[in-house]
C-alpha cells in the first residue's frame, strides 16, 4: 500500500521510508522519537478508529491504546510491512477488542471474483460530510471493509487479515457496502 505518511517517492520510484531512523531510536527506548512517530501518524490512526467506531471518545481511547501497544511491541516490529500498516493493524485489533460485537459475521460468498470492482466513484461530486454520514450509517461489517479498502486503500488480503475474516467475505462486505452507500446517497442520508 502506498503510504503517504511515511514514504516519499523519489525520481526512481524508490520508496524511502523516513520512519526507519525514528523507529530504530524508539526501539532503543527513545520516547522523543516515538512521540515524533505519534505526531506523524495519529491523524490517520484516529481517523481509522473514528470511522470504525463512530464514537469520538471510543476512537480516541482506541488510538491511544494502539500507540501504547505499539510502543510495547516495537522490539518485535519487523520491516516486512510499513510502520503505518503495522500501526493500523494494531489499531484495528484494538477497535475489534473494544467493540466485541457480532461485527464481521461471515456472509455467504458464491463467487468472490464477481465483487472485483474499481474504486467507488460518483457521477456527481458528493459533499464530504454527506459521504461520511452515509458511511457511518452502514452496518458494521460492511463499514469496516469499506473504510479499510475504500478509504484507506488496503488490498482485500490485508483488510481481511486485519479484520480476521476470509478474503471472499471482505469482498462481499465491500460489495454490499457499495450498494448500500449508493442507495443512501441517492435517497439522502437521514
Amino acid at each position, binding site marked *: 500500500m502506498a503510504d*503517504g*505518511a511515511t514514504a516519499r517517492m523519489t525520481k526512481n520510484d524508490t520508496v524511502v521510508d523516513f520512519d526507519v531512523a525514528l523507529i530504530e531510536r524508539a526501539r532503543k*527506548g527513545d*520516547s522523543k522519537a*516515538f*512521540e515524533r512517530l*505519534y*505526531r506523524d501518524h*495519529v*491523524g*490517520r490512526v*484516529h*481517523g481509522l478508529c*473514528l*470511522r470504525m467506531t463512530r464514537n*469520538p471518545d471510543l*476512537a*480516541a481511547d482506541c*488510538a*491511544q491504546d494502539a*500507540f*501504547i501497544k505499539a*510502543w*510495547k511491541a516495537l522490539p518485535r516490529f519487523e520491516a516486512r510491512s510499513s510502520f503505518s500498516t503495522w500501526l493500523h493493524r494494531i489499531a484495528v485489533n484494538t477497535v475489534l477488542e473494544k467493540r466485541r460485537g457480532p461485527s464481521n459475521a461471515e456472509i455467504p460468498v458464491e463467487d468472490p471474483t464477481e465483487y472485483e470492482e474499481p*474504486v*467507488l*466513484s*460518483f457521477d456527481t*461530486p*458528493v*459533499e*464530504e*460530510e454527506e*459521504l*461520511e454520514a452515509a458511511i457511518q450509517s452502514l452496518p458494521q461489517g460492511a463499514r469496516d471493509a*469499506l473504510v479499510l479498502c*475504500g*478509504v*484507506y*486503500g488496503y488490498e482485500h488480503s490485508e483488510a481481511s487479515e486485519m479484520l480476521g475474516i476470509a478474503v471472499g467475505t471482505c469482498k462481499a462486505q465491500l460489495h454490499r457496502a457499495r450498494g448500500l*452507500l449508493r442507495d443512501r446517497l441517492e435517497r439522502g442520508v437521514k
Partner: protein
Amino acid sequence: MNIRRVNRIDELAKSLPPSRDLWPAISAAIEADRVVAMDSAPRRSRWLPAVGMAAAVALVTVGIFIGRGITPPPATVAGTPPRRVRPT
C-alpha cells in the same frame, strides 16, 4: 464555510486528528512501563550470579561424587592372578 466535495471515496481525508492530545496519556503509560521494567531488572541481576554460582558448585560436587564411584580398579598384568592381600 468551505464545503468540500469528492468524486471518489478514496478522496476522503485519511487523517482525522483527535480533538484532544493523546500523547500525555501515552507518555505516562510508557514511563509506567519503563518503571516496571527497571524494577524487575535489578532483582534479576542481583540473584542471577548467586544462583549460577550455587549451581556450578553443586555440579562440581556431583561430578566428583560420580567420578569416584566409577573409577576403574588398578590395572593387572595379563596371565598373573590378582594379588591377594593378606590380613596382617
